[in-house]
């Protein structure tokens, strides 16, 4: 081997050595890098574990929610079905209501017709029934005035009884007419001074009042919200009754009073406690009645006395009650035999 070759070999070796050292240091660096990367990966791995656990938890939660939602959904479907059922029920109910409404309209229209018929009945009673009766009455007066000398005592008696009966029929027609008027006539309320009504009724009875020495006294009085012509009929009937059923030995003393009271101050009535009522009383010192008849006397054609003793049609107090009802009020009667009667009327003050 030559010297050159040797030195070349030595250099070559030195060079390889250097190279190896370089590589070794590079490897150290690379190794450190790897260690670092490894640590990083472990860090990430543990982070992923945590994240994974979180995801598992969230997943479970979501499943829970999902099953809850399924239940809720089923509930909604059920409710929806129920609502549809209710809706169809409501449609049926609605149809029923429409039908009922139509029926009511029909009934209302029928009532209007019936009312008109009643009005024409009123006219028929006032005119057509009265006409023949008036003739009978007039002929009876003529028989007595012009033909008495041709009649036996019995015949005269018959004519008088006939006259009596036709007068009773006239009272009946007049009273029935008054009754049907309380049903059919227009109801126009006005604030009215009761004195005016009482004065008018006193005028109706002025002859009877003079004959019986009656005293009709208007006590404390307030204005009343009433249908004036109906209330006049009411007072006419009540005062007329008080005069008719007077004590034979005592002049009639009739007291009419009225004042406003609160519902809460009235006993024995179902009144609104804060509402104002007009309390009207008509009391007398006449023959009265037995307390057990206090409701009976208001019924149609119910009388307590013999027609021979005290004339009457049995309609008067029924009219009175009807008129009070037309005023949304109540009427009660109190009495004792031979100790007078008292009528209490309550009507709304406004």
């Amino acid at each position: 081997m030559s010297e050159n070759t040797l030195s070349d070999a030595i250099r070559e070796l030195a060079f390889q050595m250097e190279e190896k050292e370089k590589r070794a240091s590079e490897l150290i660096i690379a190794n450190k890098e790897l260690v670092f990367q490894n640590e990083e990966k472990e860090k990430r791995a543990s982070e992923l574990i945590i994240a994974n656990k979180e995801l598992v938890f969230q997943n479970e939660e979501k499943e829970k929610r999902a099953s809850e939602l399924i239940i809720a959904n089923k509930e909604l479907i059920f409710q929806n079905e129920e609502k549809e059922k209710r809706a169809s029920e409501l449609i049926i109910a609605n149809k029923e209501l429409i039908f009922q409404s139509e029926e009511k309209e029909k009934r209302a229209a029928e009532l209007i017709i019936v009312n008109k018929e009643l009005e024409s009945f009123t006219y028929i009673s006032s005119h057509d029934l009265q006409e023949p009766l008036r003739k009978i009455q007039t002929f009876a007066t003529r028989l007595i005035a012009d033909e008495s000398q041709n009649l036996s005592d019995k015949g005269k008696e018959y004519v008088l009884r006939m006259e009596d009966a036709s007068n009773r029929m006239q009272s009946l027609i007049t009273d029935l007419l008054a009754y049907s008027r309380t049903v059919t006539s227009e109801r126009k309320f006005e604030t009215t001074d009761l004195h005016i009504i009482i004065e008018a009724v006193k005028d109706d009875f002025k002859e009877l009042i003079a004959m019986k020495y009656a005293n009709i006294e208007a006590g404390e009085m307030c204005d009343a919200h009433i249908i004036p012509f109906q209330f006049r009929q009411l007072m006419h009937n009540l005062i007329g009754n008080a005069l008719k059923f007077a004590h034979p030995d005592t002049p009639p003393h009739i007291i009419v009073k009225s004042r406003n009271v609160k519902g809460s101050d009235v006993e024995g009535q179902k009144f609104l406690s804060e509402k104002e009522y007009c309390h009207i009383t008509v009391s007398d010192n006449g023959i009265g009645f037995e307390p057990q008849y206090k409701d009976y006397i208001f019924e149609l054609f119910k009388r307590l006395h013999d027609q021979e003793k005290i004339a009457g049609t049995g309609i008067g107090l029924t009219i009175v009650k009807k008129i009070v009802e037309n005023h949304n009020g109540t009427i009660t009667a109190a009495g004792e035999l031979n100790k007078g009667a008292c009528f209490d009327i309550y009507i709304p003050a406004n």
Partner: protein
Amino acid sequence: MDLRKGKNIFLAEDDADDRMFFEDALKQVAITTHLTLANDGLELMSNLETVTEPPPPDVIFLDLNMPRKNGFQCLEEIRNTHKLKDIPVVIFSTTDNEDAVNRTYQQGANHYICKPRSFELLVEAIETVLTLEMWQKPQPPKEKFVLAFT
């Protein structure tokens, strides 16, 4: 002035009984009268048409509810006819209905008798009406009033 001087009277009344009552009652009134009867309004108007040469009617009595021509129609025609318009008209009717009464006064009726239920009262009503001072000079009454005997 003689309130009881003879009267020329016209009556329109469709009811036979009421015509008889009226005629008989008139005979009992202490006034000489001449009565021309009509069975309804149409007959009355034709009577008035033909019999208005002197003496003209002193009073016309008019029922309200009559066939062919009722009392309201007659009254209207009388008041719209020149030669009849000043003749006093007395309504003689069963009805005491306030609206009917008012309507006759509005149409120019001078008096209203609601047919009574006794013959004496009818005589009294006719006599009262015939002897009223206002008939001496036909003129509308100052105050409307109704003779209602019921």
